[in-house]
C-alpha cells in the first residue's frame, strides 16, 4: 500500500520512465516523420503523369499535389495556398507542418524528466521546496490520481501522434493523391467517350 502521507512520486517512477522513453523515441526516430512518407508517395504518383503538359501543370489539382510533393521535413515556410482541404490536411497543417507535435512532445519530455529528478530526490528523503512550492504536498495525499492521469496522458501523447500521423494524415494524403490522379485520368476518358465527328459540309 502507498503511504499517502509522504510522496507517492517514487511509485510512479516506472510509468514516468516508460513515458520518457516513448516521448524520446518520438522526438528522435525518423520513422515518425510523416512528411517524408507523404512526399515519397506523392512523388511516386506524380511519376504516372510525368512530362505533364503546361496546361496540366497549371491545373489546381496538379498544384495541390505538387505542393504536397515539396513538403519538407524541416520547418516549412509554405502557407496554406495550393494545399488541399480536408480533415487530414487540417491535422497536417495544424499539428505537423509547423512541427507543433514535436514541440509538444519536447515540452512533455522536459516535464517528465523533471518529475523523474524530483522522484529521485523524494526517494532520498529530500522533500524541499522549489520556487516556494512545497513538493511534498503536491505529490502526497489525494493528488495521486491526478498525477497518475497526467503521466498516462504525457506517455500516450506520442502514441496518439503516431496514430494520427500514420493512419490519418499519411493515409489521407496518399489516398487524396491517388484519387486525384485517378480522377484526372477518368476525366480524360470522358473526353474519349464524348468525342464526336463534325458534320460534313456538302
Amino acid at each position, binding site marked *: 500500500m502507498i503511504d499517502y502521507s509522504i510522496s507517492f512520486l517514487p511509485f510512479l517512477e516506472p510509468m514516468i520512465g516508460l513515458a520518457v522513453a516513448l516521448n524520446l523515441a518520438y522526438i528522435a526516430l525518423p520513422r515518425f516523420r510523416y512528411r517524408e512518407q507523404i512526399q515519397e508517395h506523392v512523388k511516386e504518383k506524380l*511519376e504516372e503523369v*510525368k512530362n505533364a503538359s503546361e*496546361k496540366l501543370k497549371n491545373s489546381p489539382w496538379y498544384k495541390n499535389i505538387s505542393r504536397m510533393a515539396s513538403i519538407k521535413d524541416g520547418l516549412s515556410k509554405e502557407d496554406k495556398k495550393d494545399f488541399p482541404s480536408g480533415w487530414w490536411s487540417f491535422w497536417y497543417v495544424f499539428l505537423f507542418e509547423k512541427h507543433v507535435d514535436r514541440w509538444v512532445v519536447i515540452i512533455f519530455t522536459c516535464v517528465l524528466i523533471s518529475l523523474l529528478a524530483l522522484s529521485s530526490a523524494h526517494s532520498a528523503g529530500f522533500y524541499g521546496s522549489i520556487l516556494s512550492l512545497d513538493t511534498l504536498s503536491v505529490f502526497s495525499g489525494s493528488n495521486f490520481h491526478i498525477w497518475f492521469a497526467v503521466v498516462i496522458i504525457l506517455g500516450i501523447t506520442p502514441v496518439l501522434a503516431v496514430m494520427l500521423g500514420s493512419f490519418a494524415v499519411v493515409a489521407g494524403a496518399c489516398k487524396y493523391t491517388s484519387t486525384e490522379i485517378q480522377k484526372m485520368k477518368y476525366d*480524360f476518358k470522358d473526353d474519349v467517350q464524348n*468525342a464526336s*465527328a*463534325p458534320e*460534313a459540309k456538302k
Partner: protein
Amino acid sequence: MRDYRAKVQEAARLRDGEPLYNGSLDHAAVLAEEMFNNAETDVNILSGNLNARVYGTSNIIEKARQFLSDTDHKIRIILENPDKVDPVDHPFIREFGNKNDDVEFRSLPDDMKDEINYHFIVMDSDSYRFEKDKGDPSAIAAFGDITGGKNLTSVFDTLWNESKEIDFLKSN
C-alpha cells in the same frame, strides 16, 4: 522510359480499360508500338502529318510489319496535312505508302480540319491513345476500354467516309 514501357505492356496484357497517362512524344511512340504489337484486327490512326518521331521509328515499322504479316489485319490512316509529309523521307510512308494493300491512307477534307481538335489511334475498337488537344502531346490511353474504343472507331469511320484517298506515288 523502361518503366513506362513495362506499364504499357502490363496494361495491354490486362486489357481492363485502366487509363494510362501519356505526356510526351516518346510515350506516344511506346504506345503506338504496343498498339501494333497487341492489335488483333485493325489499327486506325487520325493524325496531322504522322509525326516521324512517333510513327517513323524502326521499332514501330517492325511492329507494323509484324502486325501486317497476317493478311486479315488492316491499318487505316487519316492525315490532316498530307502535303506536309515527304513520302520519300518518312520511314513509315516509304515502307507502307504504296505497296501494301492492307494499309490505306486518306486525307481529311479541309472544311473538317478546323472542326477537329483531337488526334487519336484506336485498335480493335477497344484500345486507344487519345489527344484531346492536337497541339499538345499529352494524351490518355487505355487498353480494353470498349465504350471509348467503340466511340473512337465510330468517329474514325465517319471521318474515313468523308476523306479522300491519298496516292503517295502521284504526290511524289
